[in-house]
């Protein structure tokens, strides 16, 4: 079983050279720490920055320079700043190659719910609806089950949707799964020490299992 950093490490392997990537809040933010040094990746932050750098050194924080999670960050040589409309323009016109975000639920046809729990949580969708409606490729980083122990991979989402038929891949602490175009979660990899039977027991949606499911290779 993976911890949060393990999930982030595994997702980092999905990032291709010379690509523009938007990282959501939570586990997706950690992915930045594991992007291989030998590839060129430009991180987009939807509040208006391309080329997000690491956190500033202590004492060098700039209140005017934050990411979409409102954390103080830095720019890099070659960074660009722009307004919110332009930021979502490049998202809508599919200039951003990959979106990595968290989820409360994903359905077997790729629907995602991550913005609202009626009567309980009313924080809002931020940029998630725009991102999932337009992204070329969406990877979800999440825990396999919720705090109540219920599967988050479902036949249909029960929470209000963020987007429909958009998730391509899911990485959890237990497995890597691909959402098939015709529906269903195809089990691609299992986390070290996790059995296929266990993954089956905590996946409520349709699970497609090949004869041999390899263990994830992460260091």
């Amino acid at each position: 079983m993976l911890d949060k950093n393990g999930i982030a490490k595994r997702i980092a392997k999905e990032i291709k050279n010379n690509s523009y990537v938007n990282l959501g809040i939570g586990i997706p933010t950690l992915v930045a720490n594991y992007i291989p040094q030998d590839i060129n990746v430009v991180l987009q932050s939807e509040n208006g920055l391309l080329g997000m750098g690491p956190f500033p050194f202590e004492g060098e924080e700039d209140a005017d320079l934050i990411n979409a999670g409102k954390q103080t960050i830095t720019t890099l040589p070659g960074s660009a700043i722009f307004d919110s409309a332009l930021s979502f323009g490049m998202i809508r016109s599919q200039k951003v190659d990959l979106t990595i975000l968290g989820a409360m639920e994903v359905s077997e046809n790729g629907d995602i719910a991550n913005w609202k729990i009626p009567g309980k949580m009313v924080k809002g969708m931020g940029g998630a609806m725009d991102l999932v409606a337009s992204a070329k490729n969406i990877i979800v980083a999440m825990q396999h089950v919720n705090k109540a122990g219920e599967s988050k991979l479902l036949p249909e989402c029960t929470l209000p949707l963020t987007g429909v038929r958009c998730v391509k891949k899911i990485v959890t602490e237990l497995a890597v799964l691909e959402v098939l175009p015709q529906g269903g979660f195809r089990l691609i990899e299992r986390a070290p020490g996790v059995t296929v039977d266990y993954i089956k027991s905590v996946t409520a949606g349709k699970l497609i299992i090949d004869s041999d499911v390899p263990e994830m290779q992460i260091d």
Partner: protein
Amino acid sequence: MINKVVVNADEAIKDIQDGMTLMLGGFGLCGIPENCISALVKKGVKELTCIANNAGVDDFGIGLMLQKRQVKKMISSYVGENAEFERQLLSGELEVELIPQGTLATRCMAAGYGMPAIFTPAGVGTEVAEGKEVRNFHGKDYLMELAFDADFALVKAWKGDTAGNLVYRSTARNFNPVMAMAGKVTIAEVEELVELGELDPDHVHTPGIYVHRIFQGKDYEKRIEQRTVRTK
């Protein structure tokens, strides 16, 4: 050049009345019109509809207006990090319309570009789509979203000149340029008000034609919401 300068925030907002619709620039607490918000709190106008990406935190930004119950309705994309907001929302004192962030920005942009509506895929198939016209272009569904109609836009820039030309700094730009274009009356507060000729025309982000009033702000706190650092 037309001189847009007013003396201070109180003067700039003096004709904002109860029940009006305001746009407020900023992302989180970054790039918010701090002086205008303070002046609105002091003036005590009520029943406001506020279009802003976020609702501030409990004791800063729009949170200060929420504390004084000046806001009737918020139109935002993300409103976490504010306990008073959540309390007013769950108790029904505050009306909230949550909309996708790109939709929020683009509805501002549409107003500034003189376009009545835009089409976006954000929210198709979700509760955001309820009651909205859906149009199919090239095999994909889009929602029709209307341009905002705001009485005032309150924005914050880094520098501005007396003609209202504005330059923003870093990610404090965010919603400010699109909101500056969208208000029937746009008020800009700047950290540094400069004379004509001091801004390079090539570097102006918001042309002064969109700005009706400008003043040099004071005592900027520029609070940081999430101070994240690394060690040397």
